[in-house]
């Protein structure tokens, strides 16, 4: 166990700090913020991600041969800390970096890796994920979207839903049914689909937050080269498990922790500013308890990511541990946003656009977004099943 920074670590940190101060827009987080418009914001985030890549800060833990930095765990931790400290924006190609990368590294052919991985980090190709369907949510293995062989191609027909960022994506990891005669878990294949193919239609789904990050995506006679199957034909369920574990695992959680930590810091600043008569919200002992609870929970999220990554580095398998992490952070983060609104108190109903809305209404937006945390990437109910059955060994 070691949390100390070596001289080399400190150099890494200083280099990153310098780079951030050179590259973040002047006034970032104070006078300059992300664009409000969703499309503009997507472009902004993609641009920022490109900057990170150009600076050598993208794919920190990826092998250098695929464009990554091959950083150590401590460097990853420092990176998270500094990004939080600087209030740095998120990237856009999250699915590419966090899900497609680990999946192809584990299950892809060397040709597939060389073709796809570098363009993920360089932001040349943004990815989305076509897993869920209207009738296959928690029960993912009952997907209906089908792919039928036609020479050296597959022809895909069906509908996916909750395909985040599909409107900005060039590629999609798609779960399809390739054999209806097999039991439901065994007839599924995992393929890479070019979103620019004829027959692909994306229809944005507006969310409760008012944003449209998610989409419905329709596939009508979409032709996909057979070489775009990852792993074995009909062997897609196992591969999807790798993707899901990555989606729920410490890499993803670590990136989110940065964001929550930033929100928490902003919340504390807001609480210090918010006056209730002669006192500040931050002096209210009842609120302090709630905020402190969130501080503890979000800090533990970071620690658990580090513990999980430390174990992964030593070769322990991901899996149910990823479900534990996801279940933990999703509820901790929901608690954070509830606390944020309580901190705003009587001003909580005022949102972005109003001059009196504290922190420009970002906590209200975050609150609305947070309702989805316990639903996407596998609902809390599904995670609890996985933990109880696979980890604790309770009977089905």
């Amino acid at each position, binding site marked *: 166990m070691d949390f100390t920074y070596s001289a080399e670590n400190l150099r890494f940190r200083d280099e990153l700090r310098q780079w951030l101060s050179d590259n973040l827009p002047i006034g970032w987080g104070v006078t300059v913020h992300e664009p409000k418009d969703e499309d503009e914001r997507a472009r902004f985030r993609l641009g920022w991600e490109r900057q990170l890549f150009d600076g050598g800060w993208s794919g920190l833990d990826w092998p250098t041969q695929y464009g990554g930095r091959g950083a150590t765990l401590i460097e990853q931790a420092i990176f998270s800390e500094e990004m939080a400290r600087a209030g740095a924006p998120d990237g856009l190609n999250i699915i590419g970096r966090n899900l497609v990368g680990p999946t192809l590294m584990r299950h892809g052919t060397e040709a597939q890796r060389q073709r796809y991985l570098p363009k993920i980090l360089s932001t040349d190709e943004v990815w989305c994920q076509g897993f*869920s369907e209207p*009738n296959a*949510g*928690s*029960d993912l293995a*009952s997907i209906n979207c089908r792919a039928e062989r036609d020479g050296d191609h597959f022809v895909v027909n069906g509908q996916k*839903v*909750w395909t985040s960022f599909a409107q900005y994506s060039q590629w999609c990891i798609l779960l399809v049914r390739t054999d209806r005669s097999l039991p439901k878990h065994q007839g599924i294949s995992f393929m890479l689909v070019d979103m620019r193919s004829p027959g692909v239609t994306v229809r944005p*789904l*507006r*969310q*409760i*937050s*008012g944003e449209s990050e998610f989409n419905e995506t329709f596939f009508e006679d979409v032709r996909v080269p057979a070489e775009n199957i990852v792993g074995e034909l009909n062997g897609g369920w196992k591969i999807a498990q790798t993707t899901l574990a990555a989606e729920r695992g410490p890499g993803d959680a670590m990136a989110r922790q940065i964001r929550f930590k930033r929100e928490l810091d902003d919340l504390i600043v807001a609480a210090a500013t918010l*006056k*209730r*008569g*002669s006192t500040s919200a931050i002096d209210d002992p*009842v*609120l302090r308890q709630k905020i402190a609870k969130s501080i503890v929970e979000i800090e533990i999220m970071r620690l658990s990511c580090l513990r999980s990554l430390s174990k992964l580095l030593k070769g322990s398998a991901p899996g149910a541990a990823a479900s534990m992490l996801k279940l933990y952070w999703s509820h901790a983060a*929901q608690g954070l946003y*509830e606390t944020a*609104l*309580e901190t*705003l*108190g*009587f001003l*909580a*109903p*005022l*949102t*972005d*656009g*109003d001059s*009196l*809305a504290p922190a420009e*209404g970002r906590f*209200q937006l975050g*609150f*609305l977004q947070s*309702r*989805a945390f*316990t*639903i*996407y990437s596998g*609902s*809390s*109910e599904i995670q*609890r099943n996985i933990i109880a059955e696979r980890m604790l060994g309770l009977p089905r």
Partner: protein
Amino acid sequence: MDFDFSDQQYLFRETFHGFLEQNHDLKKHAALLEGDGFDADLWWGLADLGLFSMLVPEQFGGLGLSFVDMALVLEELGMELVGAPASETIVATDLIVRHGSEKQQARLLPLLAAGKLRVATAIAEPKSGFGDLNIQAQAASNSNGWRLNGHKIMVPHAVMADLIMVAARIGPSQELGLVMLEPQRKGVVLREQSTLDPACRFYAMTLDSVAVDVEDFLGGAVPQPTSLARLLDVSSAVAALQLTGIAGKVLDIAVAYAAQRVQFGKPIGSFQAIKHKCADMAVAIDAARSAAYYGAWAIAEDAVDRVKAVSMAKSFCGDTARQVCNEGIQIHGGMGFTWELGLHWYLRRAKVLEFSHGDAAFHRERVMAATLAELQRQE
């Protein structure tokens, strides 16, 4: 002793329920985001059913009913997201009945009973917090008469209101009271505010040396030092009933969804994870009803434990609505957080109500103080 409603009261609810079911739904609700946000058809429909005349004494053309008679109706209004200015007009009616001067009653109550007077209330200020402690708005008199100055925020539907009831300190004693004025008066500036629930239509209101008259003070020349406290309590009691209505509605929607949504070859409502969530929601809502109905009774009777009863209701019903709205979305899975399905409208309204007129922590502190005072009296 009877802690149940009368057949007549249940019938009243049924009437409003039937009317709202036929005349209001989430689609219409969403459409109110356009334009001035006021549904005149709905207003007049409710007025025709007697909504605004319930609290008005018979001599002023009303039904002469009590706040207990309103309880189930307000729960129904909450359920269908009918909020201000209807609920605020009802609150204001109670205040005018209890604290208005004879002249004010004769002038305003007949209009209110007929649905011809829409009232908004203006309490909060940019730095006031909950309650009345830090209210700064002030009416002062000089040789030119009375002038009202101050900043109010979150005044619902202010531009559509015929009258705004403003909490302010009055005269040299700085006693808190209520001033009623038309939003058109000179010196009143309204600015629409962005809100978590855009249907609430909140306005910031600047009062810049607005000319007022003793007849604009609730109670006229006779000071009404308890009127603001009552306004806050009635508003809280109404919010508690609305929150209970919202919670009940969301549970109904969630149960219906769970009964028909199939995953793993079964309705998800057959899984204990969903089943037990729904049961916990039902229990919380039932308890919330006990609290909200008792709060209504305490308001109706201006009972000695009014403050405690109202604060119990507001804190518990707020917590319940929070739990139920959150879980209701969770049960719907991905569908739950789509804009289209509209569950967020309940969530938004519940959140705004949760943080209006004092949040749960504020009201729990009031319960604590009231309980200590009670125990001291008993000794």
